[in-house]
């Protein structure tokens, strides 16, 4: 990676998911590629959307353009559908940021699961394994709402996808 491309990645580390603003687009794992032109005046960024209907996707593309606008004359953002995004691409930093927010992070083993059968390992508040689903669809497309039957606290679970 050239120093200049590394700079583009650094700029992208400040583009946050508008719905979960502790996660950058790099933490989410949606940036697949960054290519600079030889004269370093233009840059092409390839992203893979999280969910088909996620309203954040268009905002993220706009935010990527804004973040790079000061450093490049031309910015192209390509959307690449294949391979489809998976929570396995989320960074360890991203998982840790979710945990600090009280959101159970996906376990990074999407390929091994049976669809819809995954569950949070433990309550993020008290660590109890006695947890149950309240609603399969939460405040954003990527999350479900769960609760702990030991400490009674509800919590968000970032679904394995």
């Amino acid at each position, binding site marked *: 990676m050239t120093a200049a491309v590394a700079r583009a990645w650094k700029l992208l580390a400040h583009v946050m998911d508008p719905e979960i603003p502790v996660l950058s687009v790099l933490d989410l794992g949606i940036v697949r590629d960054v290519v600079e032109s030889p004269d370093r005046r233009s840059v092409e960024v390839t992203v893979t959307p999280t969910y088909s*209907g996620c309203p954040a996707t268009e905002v993220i593309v706009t935010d990527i353009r804004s973040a790079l606008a000061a450093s490049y004359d031309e910015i192209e953002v390509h959307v690449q*559908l294949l391979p489809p995004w998976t929570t396995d691409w989320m960074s360890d930093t991203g998982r840790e940021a979710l945990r600090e927010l009280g959101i159970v992070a996906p376990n990074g083993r999407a390929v091994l699961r049976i669809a819809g059968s995954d569950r949070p390992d433990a309550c993020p508040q008290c660590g109890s394994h006695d947890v149950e689903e309240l609603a*399969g*669809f939460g405040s954003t497309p990527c999350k479900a709402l769960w609760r702990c039957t030991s400490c009674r606290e509800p919590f968000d679970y970032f679904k394995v996808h």
Partner: protein
Amino acid sequence: MSPTSEIAQLPGVEAVADGCLLLSHRLTQWVGDAPTMEEDVALGNLALDLLGQARGLLSVLGEEDQLAYFRDADDFCNPAICATPNGDFAKTMLRQVFVDCWLELVWAAFAGHDDEVVRGVAAKAAKENAYHRRHSRAWVVRLGDGTEESRRRMLLALDELWPLTAEIAVSGWREAITDVLVEATVPVPAAAPRDEAAIAGCAAARRELLEEMQSLARAHPGATW
């Protein structure tokens, strides 16, 4: 009727795009009006995924807004069941599991499509659809094998929707649905022959749905946020 004639053909991209689009719009009609707040959110989420899937496929066929907002109702080629009115929650959930089981087979087939964008939409949609199906299946089981009243409504929904299933009963669909209905303790009807009258009956519902969906874009062409 021979067994093979009871198997519907796999749909083309346009039928799936239109089906996802119209079912998405139907589901949005529940938002703010669902039995619980969790269902408001769930049905809104389903609608968003379906809208995203429809947009992906429409973009393969042409300009998505043009196709969604400026085609006339008779030019849509969705399976009739996707545009049928919501009815009560039992009917909405039974319709959903019927369509989710169809889409599961469709996305699996589209994973090998000639068009790369179709393959991409399908790969993403397959994961989303599995989650939708888990939800619709759970409700159909809960209502079918529930109280006397919930079961009564589920059986009414089955009577109403079954004639529309001939269009979506692709290879593997009947087995998938039998599995759901058996768990819901609901009798599995014989395969439905294609029912032109039932399908035609949905045409008026589709016109009414599109009138609502297209009214803003048609009143203000080119409007943006």
